[in-house]
């Protein structure tokens, strides 16, 4: 934690120094003149001394369409631009995908409340996998410690900080439930958030205007806002990214769990399900009758959180 702070400080010093040299100042001026208000446009990105190429890329990025309105070619182009920008801005070599949903796939999730011991390996794996902001300690998953006899996580303890498991307690994980009838999608004024054909509710970070109406509309607290500029240490950055998933977010936009779209569309498990040491997390294709998730839904006692709101979550709880 301390070293991270120091590093952040060094970074700002670096920027200040760069700013103070006359040459870079002149350079910045000329770029500003050349690229018009591109610097302003990309979100008040002052201080960085970008090349003309970088400015040009940002300019094109600013005027691109909503992801769903792009042709396949335009999708490839924006992905290429973003990869290049990552190299230019952060010296990061990322591989970004825009893989489409697979046919006949509808993702679903089930959480075994009799197995989970509250170790929170899932939370950590999620933070690493999805490049979540380390400054604000953003987490998509929350684990609530519950007394037996309770069933509503709102009465549980979501901030426990002690050795687990504790006797007579059980644990309940909450994340975005990828509702079929999602109130957040309805709320968005710009169609910047939608449900993909494979059931994943995603956000086009570049299209989101940051009004936070979706956040007010979500009954499950499934969304996180970037109040400041998010930061991931370079050595911890996950370079395997998806346009709708774990790519770099910017300040002032909404983000959320994407069922690890960058993994699951390649047939892998979400990071949380893979990291779980107790096997409490079951993930799979609801349309595949032989999948584990279908087995759970058929043979176990399952329930959903806030069922009465009629949002039809794709996330079930079950017990052995």
């Amino acid at each position, binding site marked *: 934690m301390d070293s991270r702070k120091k590093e952040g400080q060094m970074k700002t010093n670096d920027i200040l120094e760069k700013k103070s040299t006359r040459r870079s100042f002149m350079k910045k001026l000329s770029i500003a003149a050349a690229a018009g208000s591109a610097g*302003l*446009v990309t*979100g*008040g990105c*002052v201080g960085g001394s970008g090349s003309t190429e970088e400015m040009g890329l940002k300019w094109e990025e*600013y005027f691109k369409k*909503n992801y769903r*309105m792009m042709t396949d070619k335009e999708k490839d182009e924006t992905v290429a631009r973003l990869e290049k920008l990552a190299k230019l801005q952060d010296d990061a070599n990322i591989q970004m995908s825009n893989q489409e949903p697979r046919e006949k796939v509808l993702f679903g999730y089930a959480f075994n409340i009799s197995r989970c011991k509250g170790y929170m390996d899932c939370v950590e794996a999620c933070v690493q996998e999805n490049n979540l902001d380390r400054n*604000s300690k953003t987490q998509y998953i*929350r684990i*609530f410690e519950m007394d037996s006899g309770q069933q*509503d*996580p*709102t*009465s*549980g303890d*979501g901030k426990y900080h002690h050795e687990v498991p504790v006797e007579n307690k059980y644990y309940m994980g*909450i994340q975005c439930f990828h509702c079929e009838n999602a*109130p957040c999608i*309805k*709320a*968005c*004024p*710009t*169609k*910047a958030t939608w449900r993909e054909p494979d059931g994943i509710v995603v956000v086009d970070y570049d*299209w*989101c*205007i*940051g*009004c*936070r*109406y979706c*956040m*007010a*509309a*979500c*009954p*499950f*607290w499934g969304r*996180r*806002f*970037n*109040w*400041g*500029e998010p930061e991931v240490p370079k050595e911890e950055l996950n370079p395997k990214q998806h346009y709708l998933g774990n790519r770099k977010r910017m*300040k*002032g*936009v*909404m983000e959320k769990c994407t069922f690890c779209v960058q993994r699951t569309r390649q047939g892998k498990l979400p990071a949380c399900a893979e990291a779980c040491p107790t096997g409490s997390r079951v993930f799979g294709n609801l349309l595949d009758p032989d999948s584990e998730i279908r087995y759970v839904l058929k043979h176990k006692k399952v329930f959903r959180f806030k069922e009465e*709101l009629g949002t039809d979550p794709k996330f079930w709880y079950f017990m052995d």
Partner: protein
Amino acid sequence: MTMNPKKGIVAFTSDCIRWSLSGGIGFKLYIVTLLAVMGVGVWAYTNQFQHGLITTGMSNIVSWGLYISNFTFFVGVAAAAVMLIIPAYILKDKDLHEVVIIGEGVAVGALVMCLVFITVDMGGPLKVWHMIPGIGLFNWPSSILTWDVLVLNGYLALNTLVPLYILYCNYNNKKPVGWKYKPFVFLSIFWAVSIHMTTAFLYQGLPARPFWNNPLLGPRFLASAFAAGPAVIMMVLIAIKQKTSYPIDRNVFFKLKRIIVVSAIINLLMLFSEIFKEFYNATHHSLSAQYLFFGLDGHDALVPWIWTAIGLNILGTLLFAFDPTKCNPKYLMPAAISLFTGIWIEKGFGLIIPGFIPSPMGEVVDYAPTVNEILITLGVLALGVLVVTLLIKPSLVILQRFKGVNT
């Protein structure tokens, strides 16, 4: 009074600008003060623009704060102009016809504030074009926010164009032609109700937030708006009466007072109905109200505010209802301020903040705006006051001239 010698759009514009800016040293000082407050607001906003909304007191739990609270309240003030428009244009009330233009000026100022409040609340203000149909994607009719964008801008247009037309005619010493503007007056009446109902639906339509998910929200918005809005208009009228030579009849105050009293009583009745529902048999869904009125889990930041608001609400209503001075402006001013402040607190952060507390996961936190956030808010308020001032001043000059010539 002589006939106005000049005519035409150019002369109209230049005269309006001249009239709006001319004034004594006191007026100049007042304008400079407003500009200074706005300047500080702009400075604070550059700060927020650069670092993000992290400079505010908002969080992932309380994700709307002072900006949206004020936005909500001023939509009400804007809608309230209709309480002058109905009697003035439809019921042909002579007294209120004299001051209807002031109500419309206040509405325009309030709407400007609303739109700026929404803009400063956005995480990506430079991406607003994503909402413009054609070049962006406008999620209409699904998102209530898009409805709100439509009705607010439409109402702004109506409340700008109708008075502009009437003033322009008067400036050229002509009587406005009824069929050219009356249809828009009728439209603006329905539109006023719609801006407030739509804004209420913004909150009312969210089952995720039981505190807002309440069918009384819209009607109560209207009732409180029709009390607070005319109270603001009354404050402006008193200021005009004291500072200018524009004659304002005592009857105007009397009629405004009647509107305020009726609306304020309906508002209090609905407030009582809400409180009864929340506390007679308190459920899980009453926790927000519990937080607001009594505090929850040791968090009670709003408790003193809401009780002050209710106190001022009742005080203002009583002062208006039992007026021994028969509409003395010196008496009405504190009454109007009391009612306005009470409803501002209650309809502003008393409504928005508790909607987020407890969070959908049961967490209770307090929200307090940062200094930066307050400075931006003050800047926007100063902008609104400036707009109202600069609109009303030339309007009064034109109206007075027209009346002088024609009587």
